[in-house]
């Protein structure tokens, strides 16, 4: 995932559980990365038109991503993979190999071109397309790691590149305080939230320029500088943060309210919106 993962646990002696938690990140990446042609995800992408039996992990991740796509009216869409390739997000940083699907960026595909069969656990790409599970898969890995840690301790934090899951309470017995990065001033915080047994995920425009594409237009989303969402799972928080980033402040807040999730949005002008 190209992500620095940090796990903090409240007491020593949990090395094995922490190790198992870390393993999930490798396992999820192995299956769900867009940057390895041999990953289960990319093998799926190579079989358009066929109902492909998927592992539980890939199936549930795709199923969830499609559901978020539907509920966000396409503001979140996992089929933007080829467009991301076209914009240069196509290099596996570990192997330094460029991965390219051969699809044209103009190809008009959307989440509607992916069908799933729940009883059979199959996924069918109705047209050639590249699924990008980016944030959802990372969220899933965080959630898996949290499950692993919850078996042995209630108090812990998982930080995967700034996407967080906060288990239990901090050493002072309080909810964890989480600073939100200032989207315009590096190294400064613009806000803070308190979280316990929930995920806090932020989608910001500061990290790699205009990296979030509005799937509905194919253009970068520019109405939000930073969108933070708190949710019971990192999977949901991450996907919702991306959706909100694309939807913009007004629709984004409405979306979060429908989902009964807490969120904070900052526009490029640093106007603050909150659920």
């Amino acid at each position, binding site marked *: 995932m190209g992500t620095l993962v940090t796990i903090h646990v409240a007491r020593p002696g949990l090395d094995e559980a922490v190790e198992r938690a870390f393993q999930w990140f490798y396992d999820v990446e192995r299956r769900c990365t867009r940057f390895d042609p041999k990953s289960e995800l990319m093998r799926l992408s190579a079989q358009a038109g066929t109902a492909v039996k998927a592992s539980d992990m890939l199936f549930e991740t795709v199923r969830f991503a499609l559901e978020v796509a539907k509920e966000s009216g396409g503001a979140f869409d996992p089929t933007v993979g080829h467009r991301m390739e076209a914009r240069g997000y196509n290099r596996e940083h570990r192997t330094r190999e460029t991965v390219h699907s051969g699809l044209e960026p103009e190809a008009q595909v959307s989440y509607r071109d992916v069908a799933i069969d729940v009883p059979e656990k199959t996924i069918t790409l109705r047209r050639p397309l590249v699924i990008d599970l980016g944030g959802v898969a990372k969220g899933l890995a965080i959630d898996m790691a949290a499950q692993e840690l919850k078996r042995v301790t209630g108090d812990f934090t998982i930080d995967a590149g700034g996407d967080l899951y906060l288990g239990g309470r901090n050493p002072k017995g309080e909810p964890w305080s989480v600073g939100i990065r200032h989207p315009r001033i590096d*190294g400064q915080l613009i806000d803070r939230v308190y979280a316990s047994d929930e995920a806090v995920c932020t989608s910001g425009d500061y990290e790699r320029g205009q990296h979030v594409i509005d799937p509905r237009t194919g253009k970068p989303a520019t109405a939000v500088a930073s969108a933070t969402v708190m949710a019971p799972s990192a999977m949901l928080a991450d996907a919702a943060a991306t959706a909100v980033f694309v939807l913009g402040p007004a629709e984004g807040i409405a979306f979060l309210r429908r989902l009964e999730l807490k969120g904070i949005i900052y526009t490029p002008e640093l106007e603050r919106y909150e659920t």
Partner: protein
Amino acid sequence: MPPASSPNKANKKVANSLVALSSAAVLAVYSAGYVRTKAAAEKFVQQADDRRPRQAPPARPEIVEASLKTAPAPVPVEAKAEPKPEEAREKPKAVEKAPSADAAPAPAPAAAPVVAAAPAAAAAPMSPPPPWKDGIWKGWGTCRHGDIQAAVKIENGKITQAGVSDCETRYSCDIIDKLPPEVLQRQTADVDRVGGATQSSDAFYYAVYEALRQAAEAYKADAAGAPAAAPAAPPQAN
């Protein structure tokens, strides 16, 4: 799944379904078991360990500060960067340091991808000779988008230049070309964690940290009379 036809009516269901679906997915995947070949998993761990720290190097902010001031040693300066002792935080296995916010140097000329140490040098406090061996040292740092290699030049035991020597991220490295010295100053204030993506500037910190670690090790090896590592050795070497 809820029909999309009547948004208002469906809203409540939508909310519940998404939250419930994510929870169900988490449980389904988790309980489906996690059959991994130990060997493969260990290989991944090995590869990752070769390249990246699992958690922020604890001395990172201090290192960065050190590099700005061109003087202090990488490790021993941490005391002054700790605003206050936090006895309540002794329990966590890993405790993040809060880098000092007040030590920010005067804004230095930006623009150049190379962070020159000179502007801040005047402010360098008295300190023991830096234990870095002269030469150009390189290290890798990682952020969510890929890896960045930093090169640090040590002359007469001081850092005279630092910059990005290799950018292996998925996106252009333009975004960090402007890395001015103040970027190296990071503050986390008094919060437990910081949300928001790990940025390329973080990767740069890690890379500089790694480069300086090698320079310090070479210096120590020299001092001990052992065969020293050559500067600008492959960065993966530990």
